[in-house]
């Protein structure tokens, strides 16, 4: 990349993982940058697990009537693939980026509640491990990521997998809610002088709106998970028609969480795109107020569209019409964003780094996902396509072609800030093109499979359905191409972290505050922060302000004590939950850990 100025290798070696007193310092860390990196590494680990599950599923489906996986194994794997990718990869990966960058982008020293921040992370990690422990404790859950009753009730599913599912997600849910609270507090309280809310970088803005969404949606999920757990354990019959309950109640509760969840997995990705496209187009975001405002519109509307997941259930006509109209309406603020990003590129001076390749193809792939999404709001089309591979295709265009492409873009964009080293552009181009080809090969044909009548969540399909075998084989080949692309990506992370070209403070000539400090930033983030006059503070600097840091203001550099309290508390909470699925002895140990952790927590000032 000739446009990127070369930075000489530093005299002082860049910090590495194994410095700073090793592993223990990470466990005790309450520094948002270390926690952010731990989030990203943990979610990368879970991404590998979810990816391996996907490959096994696609291998089974490569041929009709294949015997590669048993029905139970297939059902475990598709349940765990969905649960993993949603709760342990996409959502927490976005939270991980926000944990690292929100404080930097608003010129803060850390999150508002650093110890709570660490607690959120450890709950995610231990909760994820608890979920995976189910494989060794009698079988993973087999009722899908949505766990519809009555199939998830004890009468039809006696495996402890579903208990692990509800308890583990409850644990990670607490962490996610706390992360939401922490982000809102951080942005409201810790902004640098001059950073009005109307000058927030769009990533920060969208992450804040997203945090409000998290508070409502994840609280609802956690309440529903308790209902499911006590229904299974104590025969509570919330969802049993014969006892005066209603199986549809679970669907309403689940999707009233589940649809906001879709936006929880998309809004921060919109934020990433809104940072990356302007920087590589050398233009400010087109229509800042519209991009920011449309995010709020999406947040409000996303609470009013859940029943479009239930059009085939047979709800009253007027109810279906209401949810159809609300679901169509949400396409408007989403479309506004796409057009604004296009207009940002228009007339720019676009540098096609790997980050920009991912970001600009996001526009195209997410548009496909968005348009197929609108077709579900057209109720009769939904009656035809729901629960088919058409939905699988749509949902992956949104979450993979959309969110994951944005995450890849953000990784290439921000990795230099996190490590001081650039990711290899040569490997990056390979990664991008293989991902682009592999992704479309895997998922484009699934639209047609769905229209041809192939239901979702089937472990196999009849050999005599014309076209099914060929299209499934193509899709599986695409999945293997994707696997190769992910290996290249991981290889790029490893070699570039060790030997990548030195990045310097601001390799992309970015405009937001994270580029005003060193790469990686010092533990206190900033010596001084520049004056802030717009959402592009570094762009506005005068030459004097730029070279001599004239007019930059000093900020707090107080560093709180590291503590094991958050990790211990998270371990205690997860042990208590684990005990509920096994024996009270484990819960008792968990309670002991919680008492110990709270003592540690409150002893320290």
């Amino acid at each position, binding site marked *: 990349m000739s*446009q990127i100025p070369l930075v000489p290798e530093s005299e002082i070696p860049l910090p590495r993982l194994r410095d700073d007193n090793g592993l223990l310092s990470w466990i005790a860390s309450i520094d948002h940058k270390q926690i952010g990196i731990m989030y990203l590494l943990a979610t990368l680990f879970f991404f590998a697990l979810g990816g391996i599950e996907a490959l096994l599923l696609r291998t089974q489906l490569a041929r009709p009537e294949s015997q590669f996986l048993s029905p139970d194994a297939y059902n475990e794997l598709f349940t765990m693939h969905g649960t993993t990718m949603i709760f342990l990869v996409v959502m927490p990966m976005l939270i991980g980026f926000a944990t690292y960058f929100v404080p930097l982008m608003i010129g803060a020293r850390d999150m508002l509640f650093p110890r709570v921040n660490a607690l959120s992370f450890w709950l995610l990690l231990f909760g994820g491990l608890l979920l995976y422990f189910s494989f060794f404790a009698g079988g993973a859950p087999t009722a899908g990521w949505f766990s519809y009753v009555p199939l998830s009730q004890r009468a039809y599913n006696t495996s402890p997998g579903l208990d692990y599912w509800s308890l583990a997600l409850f644990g990670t849910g607490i962490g996610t809610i706390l992360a939401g609270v922490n982000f809102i507090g951080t942005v409201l309280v810790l902004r640098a002088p001059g950073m009005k809310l109307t000058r927030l970088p769009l990533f920060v803005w969208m992450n804040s709106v997203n945090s409000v969404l998290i508070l409502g949606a994840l609280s609802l999920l956690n309440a529903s998970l308790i209902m499911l757990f006590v229904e299974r354990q104590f025969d509570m019959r919330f969802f049993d028609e014969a006892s005066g309950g209603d199986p549809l109640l679970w669907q309403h509760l689940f999707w009233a969480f589940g649809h906001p969840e879709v936006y929880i997995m998309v809004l921060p990705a919109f934020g990433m795109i809104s940072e990356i496209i302007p920087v590589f187009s050398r233009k400010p975001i087109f229509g800042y107020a*519209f991009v920011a405002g449309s995010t709020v519109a999406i947040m409000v509307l996303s609470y009013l569209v859940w029943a479009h997941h239930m059009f085939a259930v047979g709800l009253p006509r007027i109810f279906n019409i209401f949810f159809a109209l609300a679901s169509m309406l949400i396409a408007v603020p989403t479309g506004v964003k796409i057009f604004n990003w296009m207009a940002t590129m*228009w007339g720019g001076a676009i540098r096609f780094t790997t980050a920009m390749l991912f970001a600009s193809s996001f526009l195209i792939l997410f548009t496909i996902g968005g348009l197929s999404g609108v077709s579900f709001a*057209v109720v009769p089309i939904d009656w035809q396509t729901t*629960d088919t591979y058409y939905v699988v295709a749509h949902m992956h265009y949104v979450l993979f072609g959309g969110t994951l492409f944005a995450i890849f873009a953000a990784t290439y964009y921000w990795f230099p800030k996190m490590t001081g080293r650039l990711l290899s552009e040569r490997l990056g181009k390979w990664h991008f093109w293989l991902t682009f080809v592999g992704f479309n090969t895997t998922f484009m044909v699934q639209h047609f499979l769905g*229209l041809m*009548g192939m239901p979702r969540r089937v472990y196999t399909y009849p050999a005599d359905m014309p076209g099914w075998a060929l299209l499934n084989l193509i899709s599986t080949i695409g999945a293997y191409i994707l696997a190769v692309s992910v290996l290249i990506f991981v290889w790029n992370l490893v070699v570039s972290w060790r030997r990548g070209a030195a990045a310097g403070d601001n390799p992309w000539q970015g405009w937001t505050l994270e580029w005003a400090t060193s790469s990686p930033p010092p533990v206190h983030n900033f010596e001084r922060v520049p004056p802030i006059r717009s959402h592009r503070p570094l762009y506005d600097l005068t030459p004097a302000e730029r070279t001599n840091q004239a007019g930059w203001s000093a900020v707090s550099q107080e560093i709180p004590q590291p503590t094991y309290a958050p990790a211990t508390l998270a371990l205690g909470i997860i042990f208590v939950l684990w005990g509920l699925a096994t024996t009270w002895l484990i819960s008792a140990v968990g309670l002991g850990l919680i008492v110990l952790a709270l003592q540690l927590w409150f002893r320290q000032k």
Partner: protein
Amino acid sequence: MFPFDTASPQSAVIAELFNLIAVIAVVIFIIVTLGVLWSAWRYRHQDGQPEPRQIKGNLPLEIGWTLIPLLILIFVAVRTVAAMDLVDPAPPVDPTPDLIITGHQWWWEIEYPQAGVMTANEIHIPTGQRLLLQIEAADVLHSFWLPQLARKVDMIPGQTRWLWLEVDEPGVYSGACAEFCGAQHAWMRLRLTAHAPDEYEQWLTQQAQTPAQPTTGDAAAGAQLFQERTCVNCHAIAGTAGQARVGPDLTHLATRATLAAGLLTNTPENLRAWLKAPHTLKPGTLMPDLHLTDAEVEQLATYLETLP
């Protein structure tokens, strides 16, 4: 009709609507893609180029790309509501079902209440008549779906749903359970045969007959086994003591095209293989493996084949 075969007025409405939405979607997709590709090519960075003009926005444009999609969506909404009434008209106030379909793990119970006929996994209907289906579930959620014929409708235990079904042309139409329902969701296939009306009457008359019970040979031995082994606890055969509705009705099993909800073609060999080892062929099936000897399998199969 593209994008899927349609064989009823209801599914034709869906396909027509799909094509309308698809055209709108493709046009928007082309605009976005061309816009991105054009910018990528026309506005790529060139060496020595100064910073481009810093355009912060444009209010008329913003209003335009808010309002135009809104207008398109209002049009789509009107078409949607109109199509809902065509695809899924309300059932009569006091509905009398022509068929009652009940979803079970993992098979379909099909009842013709007026003719007193019970069958499983294979629906037979006359062409050119609009039939009212009563939709039920016996255990977990299922979803009734014949892609070429009708809207999908979920089957919910304890709740009744109604569906209009109509077929234009005689033929065989494939369907499936569309809601995940456990281990063998994949092999909960459904088969609908549409007959010319007189042919349908013949079929119905035949199905309504109570078959004569065999008195000699393997078939008689099989009839006795059916009553003595636990078969009779779950399966019904008209004209015998077996009247249970836990598993599929076997009265006219010999006339069906498939076994085990679409898993196997109904051949003598497959019927014997199924009786011998149901769990090998359909892991998780609720039919118990009775560890029948080869002789018992032969007797039972012979019996079931004599019940036309």
